[in-house]
């Protein structure tokens, strides 16, 4: 995909194209007659890729100190824990 050794402007424009393209793919897929659970997984997967691109290249986590990546990862770990609790509760109900 994109390389940080390129000129920043070219890199940023390439990331913009990826973000816009992935977003339009998600909108297109959501219109197709595909089972809802599959669409949700695919589109949220695409959103995660877009968020990662923004964090790595626009927020410069790829080039910055690893301490910042750790700070960014802490809430993600907490999110996984929170979702685990929510879905564990639903499984118990079933």
């Amino acid at each position: 995909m994109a390389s940080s050794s390129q000129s920043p402007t070219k890199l940023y424009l390439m990331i913009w194209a990826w973000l816009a393209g992935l977003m339009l793919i998600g909108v297109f897929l959501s219109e197709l007659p595909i089972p809802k659970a599959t669409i949700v997984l695919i589109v949220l997967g695409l959103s995660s890729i877009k968020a990662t691109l923004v964090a790595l290249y626009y927020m410069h986590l790829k080039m910055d100190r690893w301490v910042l990546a750790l700070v960014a990862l802490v809430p993600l770990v907490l999110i996984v824990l929170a979702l685990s609790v929510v879905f564990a509760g639903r499984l118990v109900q079933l």
Partner: protein
Amino acid sequence: MMSQAQAIGASGHANVPTATGIPNGKLGMWIFLASEVMFFTGLIGAYIVLRLSHPAWPGSEGHLIVHIGTINTLVLICSSTTIVMALAAAHRGATPAVRWWLLATIGLGALFLTIKGFEYAAKFSHHIVPSTNIFWSCYFVLTGFHALHVLGGIVFNTLVLAWTRDERLWAEHAHRLELAGLYWHFVDIVWIFLFPLLYLF
């Protein structure tokens, strides 16, 4: 005369040595953003739990126009690019370019809020308000808090734009452009998840 690239590197508090090697302001902004992630996770998590509890959700009463959401998403993606271009221009010492890219970012943020305002107005004209049903409660809370964050970002970006007009102030505050950019990208990331959750499913 000090170039803007030098200004960013040597200005104000940005270059004070720290134990982590990261400027305090930048580390503080990342910690703040981590707390903001938890704030929106709480709201989005509540939305997901409520939605999973209602199989027929949102039904015919919960219709949002996808192409308006798509346009607004494109607007925010473009604004993320313009603010990172402003930072790149600052690193080159090209202050006039910084101003133009910041102005574009502020304009795109205002466009996002204007489109959102028209969306809200259309809903209100059909007597759809936060108390209409649980879907609309979630919609107005999620998009309302996000819009407030966009507004906060516009204010921050406008402050940075104002600092570029005075060489002395810019030399002192140039490093805050990066902080404004980090905040703005966070606002973009939140919308990246809100858009499909509210408009596409």
